[in-house]
């Protein structure tokens, strides 16, 4: 069930009406849990079996950990659960990838093997709830979280539909307490929630869907386009993936706000970053913080010397890249991000004051944005061969000014301008709710512009949310 669909609107209206009618928060929780399972079953009813399995095993693993005093046994329970759930993720998401990669490697070594391809369906959301369940068990083991005795609360934490299929990857310490206590559906939550939903739909429908044909016209063609076309396509993809993913998160947070539940922010104007560390504190924040806390830090983080820090960074980003998909270009993208982190870590930041520092900031942000965009070539490419061809074209030409990329619709061009203006103001003010300080008429002008552009964008062909495939 796509957020930007009539089916979802009807689902949400019915659910919200029922939620308001039901006063007790435990009954509201059961309503949300049932709705979440229905939402997930709309993708494929068989997926429910897997989410129930992961929910049940992780709940009882955490319970076993919390009841066990012996530290060795506690660690064994956590390790056993981690192995179990990562094997589940590995099987559904990576089995065919590893088999095909092994077959190619054996073929390169001159060994013939029978081709093998397992008929496995990748369940939607698996990458997200596996990480959330692992986080929960680890937090209970570390003593940072008390195991919840109510399976219904935990089940809702895992399956909660606004964040289920594309995040944010929620921390139990943030979401569980909200589920365990009564919530208020306030006017402020409603207005803020509706605005986030509108903003998310605007980003998705007007910008992401509007740019999709431009991006596809560059990346889905048989022959290699010219460098200018590649640059146009990459810039378009940078905007597309940002608006697609952050738009989804905005809708998820907005929908959740209607129920009085706060989901974590997942994007904080990442393209205004001037270095990779800052970028990863602003882009897909829930994933980067998860990787930092449950992979980078346990590997040793920056506590074991300079060389080991770099190794840990590279490993973390490699696995972060692999999380995005079972393909070598994602691993390459992860390696590239790791290399940027390591490389920038070697640079001494230049000191400047006053207007000079503003100019430096703009220049470094611009330069870093180009580096991020090259990473998107690796991410969006259909194959390693395309990465090679497009990289060669970018650096060796032939150079000409001809642009053959599909032109975006008018609504998209206007929408990009409005989004740049909005994000810049929000970034400079440091608050996403900066517009609340405006006079009502001015605030309303912003809302009306978003509504009108979204209506204009409604004729765009709809494409699936990019992060659903992860």
């Amino acid at each position, binding site marked *: 069930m796509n957020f930007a669909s009539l089916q979802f609107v009807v689902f949400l209206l019915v659910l919200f009406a029922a939620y308001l009618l039901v006063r007790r928060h435990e009954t509201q929780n059961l309503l949300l849990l049932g709705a979440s399972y229905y939402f997930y079953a709309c993708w494929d009813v068989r997926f429910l079996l897997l989410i129930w399995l992961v929910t049940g095993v992780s709940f009882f693993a955490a319970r076993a950990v919390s009841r066990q005093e012996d530290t060795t046994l506690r660690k064994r329970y956590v390790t056993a659960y981690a192995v179990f759930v990562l094997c589940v993720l590995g099987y559904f998401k990576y089995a065919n990838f590893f088999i095909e990669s092994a077959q190619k490697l054996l073929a390169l070594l001159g060994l013939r093997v029978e081709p093998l391809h397992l008929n496995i369906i990748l369940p939607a959301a698996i990458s997200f709830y596996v990480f959330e369940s692992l986080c929960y068990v680890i937090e209970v083991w570390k003593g940072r979280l008390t195991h919840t005795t109510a399976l219904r609360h935990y089940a809702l934490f895992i399956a909660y539909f606004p964040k289920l299929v594309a995040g944010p990857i929620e921390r139990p310490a943030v979401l569980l307490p909200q589920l365990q206590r009564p919530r208020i559906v306030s006017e402020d939550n409603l207005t803020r929630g509706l605005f986030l939903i509108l903003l998310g739909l605007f980003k998705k429908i007007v910008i992401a869907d509007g740019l999709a044909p431009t991006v596809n016209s560059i990346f889905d063609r*048989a022959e290699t386009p010219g460098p200018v076309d590649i640059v146009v396509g990459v810039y378009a993809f940078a905007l597309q993936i940002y608006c697609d993913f952050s738009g989804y998160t905005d809708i998820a947070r907005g929908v959740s706000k209607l129920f009085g539940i706060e989901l974590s922010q997942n994007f904080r104007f990442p393209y205004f970053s001037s270095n990779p560390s800052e970028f990863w504190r602003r882009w897909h924040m829930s994933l980067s913080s998860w990787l930092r806390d449950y992979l980078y830090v346990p590997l040793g983080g920056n506590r074991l010397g300079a060389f080991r820090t770099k190794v840990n960074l590279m490993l973390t980003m490699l696995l972060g890249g692999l999380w995005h998909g079972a393909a070598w270009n994602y691993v390459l993208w992860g390696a590239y991000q790791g290399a940027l982190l390591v490389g920038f870590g070697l640079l001494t930041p230049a000191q400047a004051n006053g207007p000079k520092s503003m100019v430096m900031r703009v220049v470094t942000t611009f330069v870093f944005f180009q580096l991020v965009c090259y990473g998107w070539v690796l991410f969006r490419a259909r194959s390693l061969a395309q990465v090679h061809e497009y990289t060669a074209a970018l650096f060796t030409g032939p150079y000409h000014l001809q642009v053959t990329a599909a032109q975006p619709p008018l609504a998209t061009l206007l929408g990009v301008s409005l989004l740049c203006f909005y994000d810049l103001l929000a970034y400079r003010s440091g608050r996403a709710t900066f517009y609340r300080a405006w006079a*009502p008429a001015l605030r309303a002008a912003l*809302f*009306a512009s978003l509504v009108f552009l979204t209506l204009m964008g409604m*004729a765009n062909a709809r494409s699936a949310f990019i992060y659903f495939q992860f």
Partner: protein
Amino acid sequence: MKVALWTLVWLAAIDVGVNLAFGISPASSNSPSALMRYFEYGRSVEGKLRRMVADPQGAGLIVGAGWIEADKLKALPDKAADGADLMVAVYGQSFAFMAAKEAAKQDGRITLRLVGGPSAPPNHSFAAYQSDTARSPADVVVVGVLSSSVGRMGALSGLFPTFENPAPFTFPRYRLSNGRLEAEWPLIRSEAEFRSAFAERSPLWQQFKQQLARSDRGYSSFVFDESSLDNSSIVRLIRRGWVAHRQPYDDAVYKASAGFRPDSPDMKSLDAMLVEMGRQSRDRKERLIVLLLNTKGRSDYLRAALAPGLEKAGIEYLSTSDYFSANDPSNFAPDLHYTNAANIRLSSALLKSIRRNAPDSSLPTSNQVGGR
């Protein structure tokens, strides 16, 4: 509450502002700009028709296109011209015409008789072929089956399928009943009938609307009926967005990523139509070639759906998938027609097929069927 009211005020102001800035005045003799046309796309079908009929040299040019009328057919070339040795009759739409014209240009000795309509679906081509009996037998008959038009077999006219530029030409719907094709003809069957019924909103026009409501899968009164809502640019945008995401024609015959549904009644009718065309062309001593024209993103679905039936009936066909991929955007021009290069590849193959064997040989050899 204040903000909500102000938002409504702003939306109303934008609505009026867009109409003032980009409204098309029917009295104006200037061609509307791209922006003006953009904000007009969501006008109701009747609203668009009214403006088109009032602008016969501009938007109204399409009003006369596609009608299956004896007078219009009579005006077309009937036999090979001086210097030409083949008469090729083509039934279909612009994609088929472009391929045929390029083939004729390459050859220099072919006379073309082009019978079709904007994005004409197979039932239009079938009806046109059956109605086109007054001409001399052609040496070769080419019928173009366009993948994006296959679903429009659920239509009775071009009014709904091409909502942004409705073409009022009509054609029958065919349904298979006990193995026989039964036609439901539209109540309005000629351009003159359309103009007079529409101008007066006569009882015939109302009956035609009722027939569309019953038998045209894409009919919707919100989309069709002209009303004061047409004056709102916001309503026009909503209507356009709604139509863009309704897929009443495609849903009946097609599933994205899986192709055409063989169990669909319209697909079975299409099979039957092509077999019947094959039989009729053999009776008329004409060689039939079916062009399977895959549109952007439609892969090789037409061949997968139709080749078994065509091969069983011994009907020669060519599929664009043998010459270029419909999944490669570089094979398509911005208006979604094939690029010149792709069209040349297709037309060269078509020319080869047209020139192959004697003109009255209708039983293909094994290397003819499949069109390689």
